[in-house]
């Protein structure tokens, strides 16, 4: 589904150039469950941003289902993100002024969907997540786990083929973390490509394909077809 070819991305920090991605080549097939691990500054977040079209490479090519994306304008990339990629963030990134339902409906709103249709969809999704009674709560009235579940629901409401999660459990206690991971993995089972960036070794191990990064390079890429650990 995704082919990254020789992707380079460097930043200038002070008077030093940091190569966050150094000739990275990576293929991702549809339905894969991938974890990206590595120390801070290894380039794993940059890789995720690259996959999510939030960042542009200095060189290299990015093809999504055979279509070259590096030449797209920022506006086209935004539209592409909306339709094809769901994001999960460590700090949830819910808008504090909007209710759970309001946050959930944001992507639909950006599309211009009618309020009635939006309401119908969000009600269903919230029910699926067991958050029906929290629909009209503001983020600060929700627990961390609940907030992250709303964020996942928001990422999935337009049914994108790929979900990118950046430390999805980083701000959660163990119990909520496990719950969130279960939801993500269930989504993967239903056919969605899932890419998780994490520090958490236990979480990283659960993925079927594990990528390790160091200094902007992929230093390890191992797959295990076995699905036992995902119970």
């Amino acid at each position, binding site marked *: 589904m995704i082919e990254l070819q020789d992707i380079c991305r460097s930043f200038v920090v002070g008077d030093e150039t940091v190569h966050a991605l150094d000739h990275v080549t990576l293929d991702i097939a549809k339905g894969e469950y991938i974890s990206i691990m590595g120390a801070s500054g290894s380039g794993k977040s940059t890789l995720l941003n690259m996959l999510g079209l939030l960042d542009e490479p200095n060189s290299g090519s990015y093809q999504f289902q055979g279509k070259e994306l590096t030449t797209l304008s920022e506006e086209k990339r935004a539209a592409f*993100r*909306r339709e094809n990629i769901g994001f999960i963030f460590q700090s949830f990134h819910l808008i504090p002024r909007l209710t759970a339902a309001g946050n959930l409906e944001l992507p639909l*709103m950006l599309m*211009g969907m009618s309020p009635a249709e939006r309401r119908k969809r969000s009600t269903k999704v919230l029910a699926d997540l067991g958050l029906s009674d929290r629909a009209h709560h503001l983020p600060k009235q929700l627990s961390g786990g609940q907030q992250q579940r709303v964020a996942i629901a928001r990422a999935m409401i337009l049914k994108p083929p790929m979900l990118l999660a950046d430390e999805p459990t980083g701000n959660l206690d163990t119990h909520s973390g496990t719950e969130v991971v279960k939801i993500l993995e269930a989504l993967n089972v239903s056919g969605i490509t899932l890419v998780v960036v994490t520090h958490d070794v236990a979480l990283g191990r659960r993925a079927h394909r594990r990528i390790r990064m160091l200094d902007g390079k992929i230093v390890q890429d191992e797959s295990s077809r076995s699905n036992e650990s995902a119970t």
Partner: protein
Amino acid sequence: MRTADYAMLAFSSLRFSRLRTYLTALGIAVGIAAVVLLTALGGGAQDYMLGQFTQFGAHIIAVNPGKTTTMGVSGAVISNIRPLSLEDAEGLRRIPNVRSSVPVVQGNSPVEHGNRTRWTFVIGVNHEVPQTWKINVAQGRFLPNEKLEQARNLAVIGYKIKQELFPGRNPLGEFIRIGQERFRVIGVMESKGQVLGFDMDDIVYIPVYRAMSLYNRESLMEVDLLYAAGRDEKQIVERIKKYLIERHGGEDFTITSQTDILGTLGSILTILTAVVAGLGSISLLVGGVGIFTIMSIAVNERIKEIGLLRALGASKRQITLLFLFEAAVLSGLGGVAGMLTGLSIAWLMHFFIPALPVSVSWDYVLLAEIIAIATGMVAGLLPARKAASMAPVEALRSE
């Protein structure tokens, strides 16, 4: 994205930082209230002045002796060698569409009755004053239609003269002394109060021929012509000019139509109101700077949120519009609040000081509202553009 959704999002963020919203809107509101109130006072002054000038009716053309080029009283009104005569006044009456012609001579004399004396204005006129000047007799009748040279010594007195000379008595049929002559009072005018600083009640009207002999004058100070409503004023003015030039052999007179005066006066007062509105909008400008500041702060505070929206696929245009909407709602709210405040203060002023003319200039109210919202949008545009052009990664990462 739907307009209602923009509005919803804008309102939600304005509600979220309520105090800040109120204070920003208050800034705009003060400016708008100032503009509304000041233009209401300006409009009131305008109405008042125009009302004063149209007291005598709108279809009057005045002819004065002498050619005046500059403003003010021409020396020719006081004395001149090419007089405006009674015959001129009579002749002007025959011009088509001229309904009446009042010759005027004005003087200043003590008027006596019994042992009471009052210094007052004495105006020599003819019987056509009530219809021409739109002033009516309250008691008795006005001067009769008599051949000018044979006019009898009759007088019609103003309301104040009646009070001063005939307190509690009926003046009709009584005699008053003006200069060395006796006049019989045949009417009392209705009270009109001051018009343009001239007390209309402190006047004695006598036949013009009598006034000319009383003041030893051979010419008139003014001729007032009433023309039929709806007729072409320009054409009538041209005819008057032609007629008088024929009689006098040159243009030694000045024609002033009510429309001229109203036009000049109107434009002066309009400028005045505009200046006053301009003064008020200094505050509006400062309010605009306020919106700009607050919107800049809002953008700075919400960089992360902007990043999220970008990640969710919002276009630059959508982000810009979102912040513009917020700025517009902010200034619009302030505008409405300011308008209501300004209107209420204007109304209260009018209520407590009825003498103070207040007239709300809706043009300016509307203009001020539009300017307020436009100010808000312009002030919001730069921060909004800044928000939209932020790189999504940077925005998400910012603290």
